[in-house]
């Protein structure tokens, strides 16, 4: 399945990505974990920047949004919303808002 992912500014720069990323993610279940696995496989420089490279946990100042929902605290193996797995909506990876 083709999944759309939007990355924050600094990660786009780091991976030299312009605009949105489209990824082929194998099914049958497309989850946060399989999307991030595919993203890191295509862009190894992103390893460790979204998930801790040792524990695999989401970095605390990042959030996952899609379809007006906050998916940050959903189990990582849950299926993503149908609109994301169909490619109609992107998965948004967002840096927590903080000054400085």
């Amino acid at each position, binding site marked *: 399945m083709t999944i759309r992912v939007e990355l924050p500014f600094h990660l786009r720069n780091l991976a030299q990505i312009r605009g949105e990323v489209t990824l082929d993610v194998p099914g049958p279940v497309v989850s946060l974990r399989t999307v991030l696995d595919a993203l890191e496989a295509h862009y*190894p420089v992103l390893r460790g920047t979204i998930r801790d490279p040792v524990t695999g946990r989401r970095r605390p100042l990042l959030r996952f949004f899609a379809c007006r929902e906050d998916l940050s605290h959903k189990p990582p193996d849950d299926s993503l919303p149908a609109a994301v797995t169909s490619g109609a909506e992107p998965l948004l990876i967002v840096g927590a808002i903080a000054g400085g």
Partner: protein
Amino acid sequence: MSRVRVLVGTRKGAFLLESDGQRQRWQVHGPFFGGWEIYHLKGSPVDPDRLYASQSSNWFGQIMQRSDDGGRTWYTPGGALETTPDGVPMGQSNLFAYDTSPETGRPLSTHQWYDGTQHPWEFKRVWHLEPSYTDPDTVYAGVEDAALFRSTDGGTTWHELAALREQQGEKWAPGAGGMGLHTILLDPNNPRRIYVAISAAGAFRTDDGGQSWKVITNGLTSNYMPDPTVTIGFCVHRLAMHPQHPDRVFMQLHWNVMRTDNAGELWTNIGAGLPSDFGFPIEVHAHEPETIYVVPIQSDSEHYPPEGKLRVYRSRTGGGDWEPLTNGLPQENCYVNVLRDAMCRDDLDDCGIYFGTTGGQVYVSPDSGNHWHPIVSNLPPVVSVEVQTLS
């Protein structure tokens, strides 16, 4: 014709400052890695075009950057689209995993937290990079939470020298900036000897390439610990060593400036005569092993120069006899700080001294501290300053 390249790490990116040996006219390059915290950059003594940089962010974690052309271009050494023979994507250069393996590692204990409770050991960032004197692909990294890592493949993969944590790691505690291993001194004549310092744990030495370590805090005192006779818990701010005298090490401690002449077996206080016993950086002259530099700061609660006067203090006698160096430095209304990794010296015949401030200035003295001028005045807060002497 000699020239110098100054590597500046700031809270919002890196900058390279270049000049000829006169060190009067400067070219400024950057920002590199704009918007990221650059704790440290350093060049290989063997191959000056080989630079390493620590790029980090509270949001996105740790990125290792490397340049093979003197800083014109950069890349993440383990971040390219490479695969192993098994087809598994690489990208390991950002991975700093504490070694708990039965073969070479040590169990990961907890460490002391600010409130005295125990706290899990968690990697946060690389504070300091120290390239080898003999091999451009070998580089050491001091990290937070405190540990020493080494790469022997140009920063592509990192392995912890885990025996260091055996030295009462459960009693180490973070300083105000975190529990970082911030100083790595390599002995140019003996690659098996390394000094490191951790805030707030102390100073340590290995004589066998990191297989075993010794606490070297005898002679240090502290009034912020309940038991003054302890060996662990000292907030060492910085160590400095002249490469020709590896047994003689100078220390800016949280309070007091110290020296040892026997590789850390005993430290003595050399801070008498300074306007304050608090500060962060310390540096040694390139050609005068008894000439040292510090930047006194008002106190541990007031991180700015005493009386609003930015003064570098120099001792030509290895401490105990200090003179203020003020020519060209602001002498009123100056309330910047100079962080521990933000002072260095070049190797030119007329030794240059450099430092950067939290106000974004980088100063140079091309004559051993007698006269100063700003190279740049409006960078983001400066975290680290290193200089390469190029021929």
